[in-house]
Each structure stands twice: as C-alpha cells, then as structure tokens.
C-alpha cells in the first residue's frame, strides 16, 4: 500500500470514528448519519482519479450551498438548535474531501473536519462508547499525522524507498498512549472551576407512566411487559443497606380518588409534619447518591422520609411541595444526594399516636361514591380494634393473606373497577391494592393516601449500585400518624421484599454495559470539583502509610505501597519484555533484512518465494517471466549474496544502492502483475 493510500484510509477512519462518537450522543439524525457513513466507507475502498473527483465536486457544491443556507436559516431566523444543521454541512464537506483524488492536498482540511465532528459530539452527552471512539481517534490521528508528514516529504524529495513498515506503525500506535495519558492527566487534574452553561447534554427524556398529575387504575404498571429501562442508579456512600430489594423509592403522592382516577388536588395545604418529628423515628440515617435518568416528570425519588436533597448540578433545584413530594426545577439528568431516615417508628409508638396535627381532613379522607359493602368490609376487618395502627395493620394483612398478585390486566371495564377487585377478582397489581387499602382506611376516617414510586431494584456488582428499572414501578400507601407523619404500608402481596433479588440480567452484557455507562456518566460526564477533591483525598490516603491505628508498623509495608510496588514491577516486566522482543526481532543484518523484504514483495506479487526458495531460483523465475523487476532484483540478490555468504561488508554507498534497487523492484512489481505460471518454452 502506498503512503498516499495509507494516509487517506487513516484519515477516513478518523472520520468514521468521529461519526460514531457523534452518533452515540443525542444529536443522532439517522439519514445524515447513514449517508455519511456510507460515503466514508466508500472512500475507504475507492479513491477517484482527478477527472472523477472534479465531476464529484460539481455534485457537492450545490448541496453544500443548500446546507449552508439551511444552517444560516436556523442560526438567524429560527433560533433553535443550530448544531445539527451545521453538523450536516460538516458531514457533507468531510465526505466531499474524503472522496477526492489521492493527490489532492487536502490533509489539513480532513484533519480539521474530523476533529470538528468529534468536538461537536461532546455537546450531546454521548455514552460510554465515546470513550472507545476517542481512544481509536487518537490512535488513528497519531498514525495519520505521521504518515501524512512522511508522505509529503517523500513526494517533495522524490524518495523511492519505503519509509514505514508495520512495526513502525505499531510502534507509533503504541506511542499514542502518551497522548492518551496526557489526556487523562489533564482531565483528572485540571481544576473544574466552571459550572458550565452550555450543554446539549439532555438525553431524550424517558416517558414513564404513573407520576403524572393524574393516574388511572389500570394505567399504572400498565407496562405489564418487562421493561428493563433503568430510571435510577443508587449508590450508598455509607454502605449498602441490609436488604436493598425491599427499599421503597418514593416518588409522588395522590390525595383525590374519583373511583377510577387518582389525582393531586390543586391548592393542597401543607400536609407534612415538622422535621423534628423524624427524630422520633430513630437516629439511623441512610445516604443515597442517586443518578436518575431524565424522565418526563420532575420528581426526585428517594427513600421516605427524605430529610434533605441536594444537587451539585446547578441546573437542578430540589423543591418540595405541600404534599411533601420532592420535585426539582430545571432540566437535565437529575443527580443528587438524599438523606433519609433509616428507621421506622416502633408499633408501640404508633399505637400511642392518637392526637395531634393532622393534614387537611377533606383531602386525605375524601372518598368517591362507593357501594355500602366497601364500608362494611372496612368495619368488619377492624372490628374490635382500638388504635389506628392496629386497624391499618389488619387491613394490610387482609390483602396479604386473602389476595394474590398478578400482572394480568382485567379483561373488561367492569372487571377493572375497584369493587370487582375487592369482592370478585381477588387478585390484581399493586395499584389495586394500594387504592383499595386507602379506600378502606378512609372509610374508617384514617388519613391516608396513595403513593407511586419504585420498589427494590437490581444490584450491579460491577458498578456497585442499585439499578432501579421501570420493572420496579410500584404503588403503596401512606397513613398519617400524628407526631410521626406519613408512615408507609405496602398492601401488595409479594410487594414487600419479594422483588427479584437477582444479580444478573437475562442479558449479562447489558448489565456490564450499564455499569460502564454509569461509571462513564459519573466519572467523566459529571466529573466536577467535588469529584476531583474526593479523588485527590483518595489518592493521598492511598499513598499515605497508615495502619488502622494511624501509625506505621516497623518492618511492615502498608497494603497501598505493596499494591504500588506490584504495579511498578509489572510495568517493568512488561517494558523489559517489550524491549527484549524488539531486540530479538532485530537479529538480522541490514542486508538480510533488505533481502527478506525483497522476497516478501515477490511473494505478494505472486511469485514462488517461500522460505525454502533459493535467491538465484527466485531470480530465475523473474527472468523466465521477463519481469521488469528482474534487473534491479539481480543487484539486490548480488549484494545479499556477497554480504551473507561472501563475507563482504557492504559499505554505506553499497547498502544505499541496495535499498534503491529494492525500491525499484517494488515499483516494478506493483506495476506489473506476476504471472501465476512462467511461460513454457521461452528463455
């Protein structure tokens, strides 16, 4: 492969990789991406000559003008996202340059266009595939810049010898590691001072049911089919709770039920207790670092009761409304820290909670018109019970023991009613259970409400976080106890801790990829000043020699130093091995190397040039074929035989001539194809 072709392919490869990086973000537009990918792939395998290239220019130009006008239109008149139209123009220019003839002096333009595409991709919050694309781009760019530079020098000085070989290219590719290391160092160490103001980093928001202002029975959890889309990734900085699969991730509460639909009343008065009430719950606290996927509802999910929600993202402002639901104002993927109470008030304490502040009665004891038997059922279940807690518990246990959980939806509108569920069907999904319990409790005058959120999740060992998917969408009940606030009850059978506590997905690769994606989001896309300072603290702790008492034990190395020592030793072994390999590969003298290159060139041209073929036999074969490479080949073989077997030391000029003759051989072989069989009967 000539230097020109190699260079062109490397640069086109850069373009393809940059295109992949861009396509991995939110700015993906299928048509332009596919067309560009096709054009660049074509440029890899086909390089038009000058005449065809001129004709193609006549084709690109009007399209470029159209795209330019479109970009200007978006910039000055429409005022919406201007990046996509500009990127379309950029893609067209890139494809046009890639499909020029090989002798076109468009190196700099190609570099700039591919780099511009890579820069554009950073605006769209690309996923973890960007990391792979970035590494590949750096490697290809290193090779392309070197080969391009050598190519121009070779053209200018009419150099005939081959300047780069596979080993050289591999070495240069390896040296691109220097660039990557520098990139990593700058990324980690450069202080993050800016809060950022411009990023189209909003991934398309996932639509999720059950958290809108109105939710109908049968709609919530209506995605009965498995939906493994992750909505929350939760880390526990203070250690993972004992059974994370029983955790209820509270989202939104609903106070008004019209018999079919739950809704949130407008003008709801404050319905939460003072913060000091939570001290009566217990002293346990659980911190959560939550990375939420962008949803189309502005809800902050966390464990109940939530004491504090804080976000480092300035675009996210946590708020809570009168119902005590935590929401946020802003845009983007919410990433926040939540502090919740880990304990639950003891049953004895809750039994004693009889009087005190209660939220607006009309909201949390509101009932639609219901058959009498519903009220009778409530009375029968709680007959003889004195405290509200016992009544609540009785109703809760009723559903656990007498009902079954199913994801099958009711078959008709009549079967979808609450009454049918309570008295006929005896099974249903979580929303039926929570609705039924709230209705029964309200019939007894107990303040209660429906809450939607998620239950449990899937533990990701690789990423060390709890992945909460849409599969875990759930409904439960909150009951008001004066002096304690809203207490959670989950009437769904199997809804308490029976969520699949598995640590593997059906598709293991997706699990691993999600972990990678999470780390990418956390440590790259959302890397900030706090992450930096935390990292520095960790590094300094690692390097500091400490035992558990904080003092060094004489004669004993701390584990951190031992680890570093192993790393250094491994690197040294790798380096020495690499050097030894390289040295071993240079066991031949320059003349032998040149002869081996000559033999390899003949072999590729179709001549029989195996290891066992003698040099003179190879020459005879070239002579019999009357190949134009025969004459310079004679010189090459002559020098080789003299140096190898004749005991002569070639001087500098002779070696130079041998190289020049080898270049002539290569050129002649390229121009003429070798015959598969020598002509018979000719000399």
């Amino acid at each position, binding site marked *: 492969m000539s230097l020109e072709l190699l260079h062109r392919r490397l640069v086109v490869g850069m373009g393809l990789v940059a295109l992949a990086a861009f396509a991995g973000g939110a700015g993906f537009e299928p048509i332009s991406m596919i067309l560009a990918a096709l054009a660049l792939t074509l440029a890899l395998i086909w390089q038009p000559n000058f005449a065809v290239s001129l004709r193609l220019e006549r084709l690109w130009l009007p399209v470029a003008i159209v795209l330019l006008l479109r970009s200007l239109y978006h910039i000055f008149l429409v005022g919406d996202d201007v990046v996509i139209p500009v990127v379309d123009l950029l893609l067209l220019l890139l494809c046009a340059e890639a499909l020029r003839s090989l002798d076109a002096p468009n190196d700099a333009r190609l570099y700039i266009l591919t780099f511009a595409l890579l820069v554009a*991709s950073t605006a769209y919050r690309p996923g973890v595939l960007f990391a792979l694309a970035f590494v590949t781009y750096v490697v290809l760019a290193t090779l392309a810049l070197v080969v391009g530079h050598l190519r121009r*020098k070779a053209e200018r000085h009419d150099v005939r010898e081959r300047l780069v070989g596979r080993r050289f290219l591999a070495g240069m590719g390896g040296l691109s590691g220097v660039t990557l*290391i520098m990139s990593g160092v700058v*990324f980690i160490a450069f202080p993050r001072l800016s809060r950022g*103001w411009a990023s189209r980093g909003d991934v398309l928001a996932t639509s999720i049911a059950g958290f809108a202002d109105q939710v109908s029975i049968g709609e919530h959890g209506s995605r009965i089919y498995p939906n493994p889309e992750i909505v929350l990734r939760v880390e526990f900085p203070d250690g993972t709770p004992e059974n994370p699969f029983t955790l209820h991730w509270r989202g939104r509460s609903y106070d008004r039920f019209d018999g079919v639909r739950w809704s949130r009343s407008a003008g709801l008065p404050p319905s939460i207790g003072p913060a000091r009430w939570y001290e009566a719950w217990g002293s346990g606290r659980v911190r959560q670092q939550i990375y939420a996927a962008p949803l189309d509802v502005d809800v902050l999910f966390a464990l109940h009761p939530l004491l504090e929600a804080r976000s480092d993202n300035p675009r996210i402002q946590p708020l809570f409304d009168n119902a005590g639901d935590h929401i946020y104002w802003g845009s983007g993927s919410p990433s926040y820290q939540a502090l919740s109470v880990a304990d639950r008030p003891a049953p004895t304490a809750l039994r004693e909670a009889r009087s005190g502040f209660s939220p607006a009665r009309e909201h949390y004891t509101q009932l639609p018109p219901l058959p009498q038997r519903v009220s009778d059922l409530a009375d029968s279940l709680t007959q003889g019970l004195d405290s509200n807690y016992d009544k609540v518990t009785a109703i809760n246990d009723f559903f656990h023991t007498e009902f079954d959980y199913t994801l099958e939806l009711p078959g008709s509108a009549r079967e979808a009613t609450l009454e049918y569920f309570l008295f006929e069907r005896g099974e249903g999904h979580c929303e039926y259970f929570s609705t039924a319990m709230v209705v029964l409790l309200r019939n007894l005058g107990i303040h209660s409400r429906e809450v939607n959120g998620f239950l449990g999740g899937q533990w990701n060992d690789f990423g060390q976080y709890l992945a909460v998917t849409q599969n875990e969408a759930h409904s439960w009940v909150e009951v008001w106890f004066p002096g304690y606030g809203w207490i959670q009850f989950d009437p769904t059978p199997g809804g308490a801790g029976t969520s699949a506590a598995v640590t593997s997905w059906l598709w293991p690769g997706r699990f691993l990829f999600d972990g990678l994606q999470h780390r990418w989001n956390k440590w790259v896309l959302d890397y900030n000043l706090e992450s930096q300072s935390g990292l520095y603290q960790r590094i300094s702790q690692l390097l500091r020699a400490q035992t558990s008492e904080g003092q060094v034990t004489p004669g004993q190395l701390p584990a951190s130093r031992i680890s570093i020592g192993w790393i250094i030793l491994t690197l040294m072994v790798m380096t020495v091995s690499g050097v030894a390999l390289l040295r071993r590969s*240079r066991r031949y003298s320059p003349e032998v190397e040149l002869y081996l290159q000559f033999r390899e060139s003949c072999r590729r041209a179709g001549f029989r040039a195996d290891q066992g073929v003698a040099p003179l036999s190879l020459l005879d074969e070239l002579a019999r074929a009357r190949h134009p490479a025969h004459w310079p080949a004679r010189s090459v073989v002559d020098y080789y035989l003299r140096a190898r077997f004749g005991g002569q030391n070639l001087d500098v000029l002779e*070696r130079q001539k041998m190289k020049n003759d080898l270049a002539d051989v290569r050129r002649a072989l390229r121009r003429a194809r070798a015959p598969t069989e020598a002509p018979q009967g000719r000399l």
Partner: protein
Amino acid sequence: MKRSVSTTLRDAWRRLRGGRRLRFTLGGALFSVGSLAIGFAAVNTGNNLLYLLFGAMLGFIALSGWLSERVLRQLKIRRHTPRGVTVERPIRLTYYVTNRKRLFPTLAVYLIEERLAEPAFISRVGAGDSVAVGSENRFVQRGVYALKTLTLSTSFPFGMFTRERDIPLPDELVIWPRTDRPVRLPAHPGGRGRQPFSDSSGGAPGARGEYRGLREYRVGDDPKDIHWRTTAKIGTPVTREYDRDTTDTVRICLDTRGEPGDEAEVAIEVAAALAAQAYRIGRQFGITTCTSDLAPGGGSGQLERVLDLLARVDFHPSAPHLAPPIDAMGCVLVSFSGARRASYGAYIDPAGIPAAPTHAYAGVTEADRRAG
C-alpha cells in the same frame, strides 16, 4: 571586563538548550491556538469531554516534541567535502550518517549548512543503520568558506514544530576561481625569435634539460623522474630536477594591491586562466602575488596549488608591492592598475579581458546574491 547580565543569561540559556531550537510551523501554530481555544471552551462550558480533547491536543504537542528530539539524537555524521570545486559548478557535499539508536529510526531530517541554499535530506535511517545523502549547491564567488556547524532540522513526526540541533563539524570548502576567461599566454619576454608562452618546443610534460639535482617530489611530477634509490634511503620520494628551457616556464605575477571587488575578481580569473592554459600546453608555471609565492611546477597538482592560492588570495590597498623572486622581465604581470608594467616581460590588463559566456555575478551563493 564584567559581563552584562543579559549576556550571562543568554549564554546560560544557550547552554541549557544544548544547541537546540524549536520553531512553530504554520500548522503547529494553528494547532497550538486551537488547543488553547478548546481549553478555553472546556473551562468556560464545564464540558468534561472538552477537557479530554484539550488533554489529547497537549499530548500531541508533547509527543511531537519528544519524538523530534529522539530523531535527532545519537547520530554520527561524517561530511565529505569535494576538492577542486570551481565557481558556478555544482558542488556535492556527501554526508555519511549512522544512526546509533538501537530501536528508533531517524526519519525526515534535513542537514543544513550555514550559507548553503540546498540542504541534504535524510529520508530514513533505520536503527543501527547507515546511509549516505548529499546536497548540491553552487557558489558564485571563489574563496574559502568555513563550514563550522551542521544543523540538523526536522519537523517529524507531525509537522507541527521544527526542531533544530547544531553539531560542530568544522571543515572548509575551497572554491576555485573560473579558468575559462578567454586570455592568451603572451609571447615570452626577451624579444623576437623567442617562443611565445603559448608555444611549447618541448611539448609534453616532463621534457628534460640538463640535470640539476634532486628535490622533493610534488604531486604532478613525472613519476619516471623519481630517484628510487634516494627515495628508499631517506624514506621520502624525491625526483630528479632538470634545467628546463626557461621559455617553458610561465611565471604569473598577480598584483593584489588594490581594492577588492569585481575588478580584483577578474584579475584573479585571468591569472587562473593563464595557469590553466600553461597546464594544458604542458608548461611549468608558477605564481607570485603581493603576499605569496608558488614556485613553478607542472602537472595537475601544480594547477591545483595555483588555484588554491588564487582562491585564498585577497586584494588590499595597502598590500606590499609585488616583488617576484626572479627577474620581472620573465614574468607576466596581471594587474588592473598597471603599476610598473614596464618592468615586466608581459602585461595583461584584466579590464580588457571579456567575461566568459556563462559568467556569473560575484557573490557567495545564489541566496546571498538574491538577498542583495
């Protein structure tokens, strides 16, 4: 004398640099500006991925600097300067380059001589390998040109920066004056009947007269005249010397008293042309200037010695008067002032000698001439 602070600092910086220089190419300057722009954008927007790109661009710059330094290291270079280079003739300098590095090749390096327009180019020298490269230049003025340092220059690997390294490689180039001025050897002084300088009664070099004695062998002498017995005895070649017919010897007297300039160069070229003519017709010839003297001799070696002398000679207004070691009547005076011409056997006014058809302007190299 106490050195100034600036001089001290400059010397210290030069020592620290180790004779290396780094310059931006246009591409490198644009790349560096682009890096700053990306870095600024990263800080301004807080986009973490831009920090990655910024770091990568800095990495390219660092890698470029390191590789360009590696390429110029551990090179052993030997220069071969040709002898006998005449003005306006192409001169080819050959460099024998050995790459002493064990692993790393040297690629795309220029070898630049000070004041020479065309550098030599090393396309590739493999690790442990050697290569010969050359450069071709032309000089437009005679003289001795000192070659002091050889500059290695490369913009490998990316063409962003040009790194240069000076290595001391002292040598000199002697550029002979032209010898193709259309001038005729004048008739031998001493009157009629004598053979002109341009005629040769003996003809061939090594023509004999009476035996005079032995002298040290000089390059160009007839080997048949070597006295082998004495040579073996003393260990130094000696040759027989004969009284040659003085009409066969041309003594050129070049008056170098005067201002240097074009006229002086013409005078030198005339003297060179006379010597070349004498050599061609087989005469012995010698040359005397105001400051130097070369005894007559014959052959190509003598011509080289004369041309060497003429390459180095300088004109000066206060040079001593011309004082030939023999009777001035036996000399051919070349002088544009014509002083004391009557004392000499023949006189050639350089002003009257036209230029050769392809004569070039005076100057050091074409680059200097173009620079004015």
